[in-house]
């Protein structure tokens, strides 16, 4: 009996060399998500090369102009190029989302590990603390903290990080609780391993995957959350081009021109879509309950 080997597309061969990401891209929706996310990352990195104008350059005689060869997406109320502002705005969106999620992930993971591993009073205190933080609607909590600290990019990052942190603490705590009683952890303890080394060497690697997935899924929400805070005037300072600021400025002139609102809305929607599709494909690949094939 002769077997004929099915020819493998060169692109698939490339994907075979990229673990996880290759599996994500093989899914059609994952591929769409990846392309969108990649496009935005390119904007973030190469903003000065992509944007035709400086984001703060004003051309007041051409204010609120529609799309044209000179201004591809039109101009805002002080004649700034909307396309350039959106491109530079991607830096603010990602520059806020990534550190915010990193703060939430780091602190949440640390607290979740401590609560789940030590249990008893420490666990109770941390759980009550997380419950208290989650009891407030996140937007109200953020506005209250920003009102105290004052609006700025750094403060927005801190506030979003703190607001999102309990989600990670809960996920990690639940995972730690289920692992700490496993035989191999008991064995480590019996041979004299310290709590620190058990936590870092044995528990953390086994509980971090769901938190990383959660982080990927949270990114689009954090981007829209930042835009929401900027829309309410509690985000970055003008003339920094946050997408929320562009949306807010556009709202004030909605009867004169709809382009600023349309383009900033489309950008936000596309980013959310891209990250959501990418995150869900990543979950399918990483979560053994969904894929049934592989996990970290």
């Amino acid at each position, binding site marked *: 009996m002769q077997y004929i080997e099915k020819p493998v597309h060169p692109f698939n061969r490339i994907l075979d060399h990229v673990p996880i990401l290759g599996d994500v891209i093989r899914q059609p929706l994952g591929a769409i998500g990846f392309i969108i996310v990649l496009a935005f990352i390119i904007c973030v990195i190469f903003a000065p090369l992509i944007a035709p104008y400086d984001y*703060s350059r004003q051309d*007041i005689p051409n*204010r609120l102009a529609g799309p044209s060869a000179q201004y591809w997406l039109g101009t805002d*109320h002080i004649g700034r190029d909307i396309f350039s502002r959106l491109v530079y705005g991607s830096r603010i969106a990602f520059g806020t989302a990534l550190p915010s999620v990193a703060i939430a992930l780091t602190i949440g993971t640390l607290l979740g590990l401590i609560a789940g591993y030590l249990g008893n009073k420490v666990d109770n205190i941390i759980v009550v603390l997380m419950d208290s933080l989650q009891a407030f609607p996140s937007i109200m909590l953020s506005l209250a903290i920003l009102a105290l600290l004052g609006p700025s990019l750094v403060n927005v990052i801190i506030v979003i990080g703190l607001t999102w942190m309990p989600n990670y603490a809960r996920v990690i705590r639940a995972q730690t609780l289920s692992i700490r009683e496993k035989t191999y952890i008991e064995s480590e303890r019996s041979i004299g391993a310290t709590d620190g080394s058990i936590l870092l060497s044995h528990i953390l690697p086994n509980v971090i995957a769901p938190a990383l997935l959660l982080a990927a899924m949270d990114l689009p929400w954090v981007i829209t959350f930042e835009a929401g805070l900027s829309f309410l005037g509690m985000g970055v300072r*003008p*003339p920094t081009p946050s997408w929320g600021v562009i949306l807010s*400025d556009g709202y004030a002139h909605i009867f*004169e021109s709809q382009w600023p609102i349309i383009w900033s809305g489309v950008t936000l929607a596309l980013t959310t879509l891209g990250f959501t599709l990418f995150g869900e494909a990543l979950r399918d690949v990483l979560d053994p309950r969904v894929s049934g094939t592989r996990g970290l």
Partner: protein
Amino acid sequence: MKRKFWLLISLFLVASMIMSACGGLASVAPTATPAPPKILKARLSKDISNLDTANVTGKEEDTVDRAVMEGLFRYDITGKLVPQLAETYKVSDDGLTIDFTLRKGVKWQKGYGELTTDDVKFSFERFLVTDPKPAYADDWASLDHVEIVDQYTGKLIFKKPQATLWTVVLPMTSGLIVSKKFYTEAGPDKIKTEIVGTGPYIFDSWTPKQQIVLKRNPDYWGIQPSFDEIDLIPMDDDKAAEVALQAGELDFSSISLTSVDKFQADNKFKVDLIPSTAYSWIGMNVESPKLQDVNVRQAIRYSIDVPSILKAAYNNKAPRANALIPEGTLGYWKDAPVYDRDVAKAKDYLSKAGVTSLELTMTYENTDEYSTWAQIVQQNLAETGIKVTLNPLDSSSFWAYGADGKDKELELFAVGYSSVGPEPAWSTMWFTCDQVDLWNWMRWCNKDFDALHVKGIETIDSGVREQIYIQMQKLWDESVNSIMVTNVPQVYVTKQGFKSVIYPGGLSPMLREFKGE
């Protein structure tokens, strides 16, 4: 069970009959003339905080007060001063005594008895109290006392002439007469949010942040007002108000200048663009170490492109202001110098000051209007070599600079003050030396300016007054403490089927004269 079934059937039949009857009426309706509306829904730009006539916070309180309360005199719909609660009056030759006779039988709302000269005396003499001094104490600064002759006759006795008396005191909020009985019973806190008057509308209720309801006063002594009820809805955001107008949730509202074209093109609305006495400017704190040198301030003056601000923030629908007192008000300085942008000149001034690097903070209320100003100023000054950091603040944080000397912290700022009536003293009064630490945020103190301000109030001759105010503006201009930007016109939109009237000065709607058509 059976009984319930028949009951339901009967109810259904009755309901069907009622609905058919209504349907029949509805089919007749188009041929009949629609009845004038009985409820007016109007916007207030913000919620009320103090309705006390001696301490009103702004034009919103002024609007409510003047719908409910009345004075000896008032402005009519043509802007002419006419007697209101004064049936007759006579001014002495020296202008220091006004004899008046009250209308007889005028009743206070909510059962507070009849209006008498005792109420007039109480209303005006409470401005003379010094502890605590009312915010508008200056309005009655020249009053000596009110003499009661009898229940309906009295005299206003003044220590010295006061030119503002007939323009912005007697016919305006400080000239409203309050019920002595109500004020005494209510106490200082209650009078901030509850009022009793003799006017055509009764202050019925206030639900904070939601609405104020005024009801028709059935016992009103004059012509009955047009509406049974006026609902005043506080809305800070112009765009929200504009959407509410289009959705039919408001019958009358102020709107932003940038939306004028849209509403003018819609025949469901009438748009009134009214020149106002409000004035807006970019101020410089002359005490700030960075701004003490007049050359630095000149550099800033020549850097800023005012026409661009007017184009971007107001779509060229607001006039340029070159001096403090607006056109149409006595003392308007027609030949005030116009400072056009000249970056080379600005740089010269900066080098004359020996400044090589300058960083300033610009503070403003975080509205679309001032945010636009600030971003243009930031760009303009960057071209001169001055770096500006923007500091937008919410309304309460921004206006908190008007207390306890907090204005010391300011450097550059954008601000607008409103002058409820066309009276020059109301524009100059905030920039005297005793207003430093309060509302004189430039912290510019000039004794000659102060002396002229007092002289302007005490001078009755309008020709002399005009020269006094022009001289004051020259002093202001020489000091380079600010860049005047505009006198923002007020835009009011009235839904078809309603007729609106605005007080002189353009800042407050005359609700008592609104009509349904």
